[in-house]
C-alpha cells in the first residue's frame, strides 16, 4: 500500500478514474457491438445515452479521462526526468489547473445543447 505525501490524493484519483474508465469501456464495447445487428437495435439503445442524467455522466467520464491522462503525463515526467522531483509541487499545480481549464469549457459545450435548447 502506498502512503505518500501530496501525491497520495492524485494517486487515489488516478486509480478511481482508471477503474471507472475501464468499466465504461466494457459497456461501450457492448453497445457498439449492437451496430453489427443493424440500425434498429443500435438506434433503440441510444435512448439510454440521450437522457440528461447520462449526458452529465458523459461529461464526468470525459473528466475522468482528462484527469487520468494529464496526471499520467505528470507520472511519466517524474519517472524519466531527473529534476522533476524538485518541481513536484509546480507539476501538481499545472496538472490540476490544466485539467480544469479543459474540463470546464468542455462541460459548457457538451451540456449547453442539453439544458439550453
Amino acid at each position: 500500500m502506498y502512503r505518500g505525501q501530496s501525491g497520495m490524493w492524485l494517486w487515489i484519483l488516478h486509480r478511481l478514474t482508471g477503474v471507472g474508465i475501464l468499466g465504461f469501456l466494457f459497456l461501450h464495447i457492448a453497445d457498439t457491438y449492437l451496430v453489427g445487428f443493424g440500425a434498429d437495435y443500435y438506434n433503440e439503445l441510444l435512448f439510454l445515452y440521450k437522457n440528461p442524467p447520462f449526458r452529465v455522466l458523459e461529461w464526468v467520464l470525459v473528466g475522468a479521462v482528462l484527469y487520468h491522462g494529464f496526471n499520467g503525463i505528470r507520472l511519466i515526467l517524474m519517472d524519466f526526468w531527473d529534476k522533476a522531483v524538485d518541481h513536484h509541487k509546480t507539476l501538481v499545480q499545472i496538472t490540476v489547473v490544466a485539467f480544469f481549464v479543459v474540463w470546464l469549457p468542455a462541460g459548457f459545450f457538451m451540456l449547453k445543447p442539453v439544458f439550453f435548447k
Partner: protein
Amino acid sequence: MSTETKTTQHTHPDPVARTTRRWTRSGGRPRPTGNFELFSWYFFRISGILLLFFALIHLLIMHLLNNVDVIDYNFIVQRWASPLWRTFDIMLLVLALTHGLNGARVLIYDYVHSRGWRTFAVTTLYVVGILFIVLGAQVILTFQPQIQSVAK
C-alpha cells in the same frame, strides 16, 4: 558536472533516498524488476502516451464536436466507410483495453491477498478482457452497412 550540483535537491547523495522520494511524491509505481513486471511498467507508459492521442481525439470528435444527438447508425456507417477510422478505432480499442486490463491486474495484486481469490480474479479478468477485445475487433472489422437502413 556531477559534484558541483550536489547542493540541489535532485542530486541527493543517497541514490536510494532520492529514488524513494521521487516515487512517494509522484504517486507512480516504482520501476519494478523482473521481466514481466518491468515490461508491464513500460507498457503502461508507452500505451498511455499513445492513448493521449487516440482517446483525446476520440473524445473531441465523438463527444464535443459531435454528440449523441447526432450519432446514430448512419453516423457509424459513414465513419466506418473509411478504413482509416476503422484502424483508428481498432488502435483505440486494443490500447485502451490492454492498458486498462494491465491496471486492473495491478489493482488485483494490490488488494486481493488470498491466493485462491487472486487467481480467480485475474483469470476472470483475462477471460472477460480477451472476450471484449475480440468482440470489439469483430464489429469494427466485419461491419457492413444494411442497405435499407441507410436509405431511411
